[in-house]
Every structure is written in structure tokens, then in C-alpha cells.
């Protein structure tokens, strides 16, 4: 078996600090993006309400007309 390589301390320090920096960055960005996405979803739900309302009105109108035709 090949003997294990002695890794230079600078590289070890660099690896672990990059790992922790990455975790910190990811956590910060996630907490920054989370309320924005909820806000966006809320806006999208509200923007959907009007077309849904229109569709409902159209559907009921169509049903009302259909009734008279079938009679």
C-alpha cells in the first residue's frame, strides 16, 4: 500500500477554512432568500386570484346558459 501523503498545513488550513466559509455563506444566503421566496409566492397567489375569479364567473354563466338550452 502506498504510504499516506503528508499534506502541507497550509493546504489543510485552506481546505477547512474554505469549508467553513462555504457553510457560513450558504446559511446566510439561504436565510436571505427564504423570506423573499415566501413574499414572491404570496404575490403569485394573489395575482392568480383575479383570473381564477373570472374563470369561476364564466363557468357559472356557461352553466346557466346550458340549462336553458337543454330544457
Amino acid at each position: 500500500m502506498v504510504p499516506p501523503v503528508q499534506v502541507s498545513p497550509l493546504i489543510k488550513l485552506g481546505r477547512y477554512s474554505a469549508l467553513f466559509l462555504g457553510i457560513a455563506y450558504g446559511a446566510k444566503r439561504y436565510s436571505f432568500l427564504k423570506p423573499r421566496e415566501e413574499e414572491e409566492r404570496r404575490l403569485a397567489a394573489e395575482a392568480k386570484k383575479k383570473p381564477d375569479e373570472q374563470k369561476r364567473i364564466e363557468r357559472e354563466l356557461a352553466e346557466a346558459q346550458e340549462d336553458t338550452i337543454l330544457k
Partner: protein
Amino acid sequence: MAQFVHNLTEEVPALVNAAVIYSKTRLATFWYYTKVELIPPTPAEIPTAIQSLKKIINSAKTSSFKQLTVKEALLNGLVATEVWMWFYVGEIIAKHGIIGYDV
């Protein structure tokens, strides 16, 4: 049917045993290398690390990095890339997903 069950009960322990021994040896080799190569730097090693960093900055200031061979420069580039990739690994761990942040 009985023969099948009989063979099954005979062979399954042997297979499980083989799997356990295989994974144990692999784990042993993994641990053997990890203990030396992947441990975090001990506080005693940090001055050495800072010395190496000073040497690199010095070589950038005095342009002595131009004395490196292309092969050495490529290897240094690979090592630097690997160190930078650990940043993205940390980010993946923090956002609990591989591609993109979870909505």
C-alpha cells in the same frame, strides 16, 4: 421449495459475512489514509501554514514564481482549485441541496 429455502438459509449468512468483511477492510484502508491526510490542522501547525503563505506572497512580490516549471504551476493550480471546491461543498451542506436553493 424446501430445497430453495434450505439453500437460502445456508448462503445468505455467508454472503452477509463476505459483505461485512469487505466493508471492514475498505473502512480500514480509508481510516488509515484519513488519519494522516484529512484531519484538520492542529494549532501547532498553524504557524507553519502562515510561513508557507508568507513564502507564497513573497514569491508573488519578487516575481520568483516565474522560476516555477509549467508542471509545478499546473499542480499548484489543481491544488488551489481543489481547495476552492471545498467552499462549494460547504455551501451545498448549508443549503441542504445540490443544485439551487430550496424554495
